[in-house]
């Protein structure tokens, strides 16, 4: 295509300037000049059209190249953005996970502590707890079970068997809770 274009361009210029080299006194000079100029204008217009088409194709190719380049750049930028976001999320997860554990542990500990406090409160608020404390003092003082049943629980005589059972119940209940 380029060869044709340059041949036509050169031909048009040659045909345009060729009559200057011809003998002006010749009879066919005018006719040759007319033919030469007509052929030259035809060659020039054809070459111009070819060059214009070629230029338009080149422009289209440039646009395509620019579009492909922009597409590739956009794709690279998108993948870079996505990978950055992933890394950021991973980092946030890594940073956030120990905090969650601590928080969960703290909440669990808080729940356990509050439950034990409630247990302690419920134990101290129990109506038999002062009697249990008296029993403990008496046992520490070396008093016997019979003495405790008769003097602390006030269950002597016929109630002695029931008092002994109550003493054992109180000891089991409050000693067990204290051991917890």
């Amino acid at each position, binding site marked *: 295509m380029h060869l044709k274009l340059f041949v036509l361009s050169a031909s048009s210029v040659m045909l*345009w*300037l060729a009559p*200057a080299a011809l003998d002006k006194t010749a009879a066919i000079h005018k006719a040759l*000049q007319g033919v030469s*100029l*007509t052929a030259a204008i035809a060659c020039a*217009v054809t070459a*111009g059209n070819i060059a214009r088409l*070629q*230029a338009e194709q080149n422009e289209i190719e440039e646009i395509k190249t620019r579009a492909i380049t922009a597409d590739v750049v956009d794709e690279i930028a998108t993948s870079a953005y996505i990978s950055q976001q992933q890394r950021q999320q991973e980092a946030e997860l890594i940073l956030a996970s120990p905090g969650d554990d601590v928080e969960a542990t703290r909440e669990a500990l808080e729940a356990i502590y509050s439950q034990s406090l409630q247990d302690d409160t419920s134990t101290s608020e129990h109506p038999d707890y002062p009697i249990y404390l008296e029993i403990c003092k008496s046992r520490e003082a070396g008093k016997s079970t019979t003495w405790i049943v008769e003097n602390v629980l006030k269950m002597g005589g016929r109630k002695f068997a029931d008092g002994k059972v109550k003493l054992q119940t109180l000891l089991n209940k409050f000693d067990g809770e204290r051991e917890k």
Partner: protein
Amino acid sequence: MRAVYLANYFVAGCIAFSLLGWIASLHPIAFRAVLCLVAATAIIWCLSWLLDFSLSSALKISVSDLQAYLIAAGAMFLVGLGVFLCT
């Protein structure tokens, strides 16, 4: 490539003016006809220079492009006629 096609069209314009000169040289009546055509073209060319802004908006091209076309037309006329007179 754009320069090549512009140069080819410029050469074609120059050759067209040479062809017009050749037609004018064939017969006195043809000479008068071509003279009238050239005179009309010259008047249009001058008016185009005077009305370049309104003409550019009417043709939907920039003023600089219109002026470039007018200069190219003048140059084609001068070159084409000069080459024809030399040959």
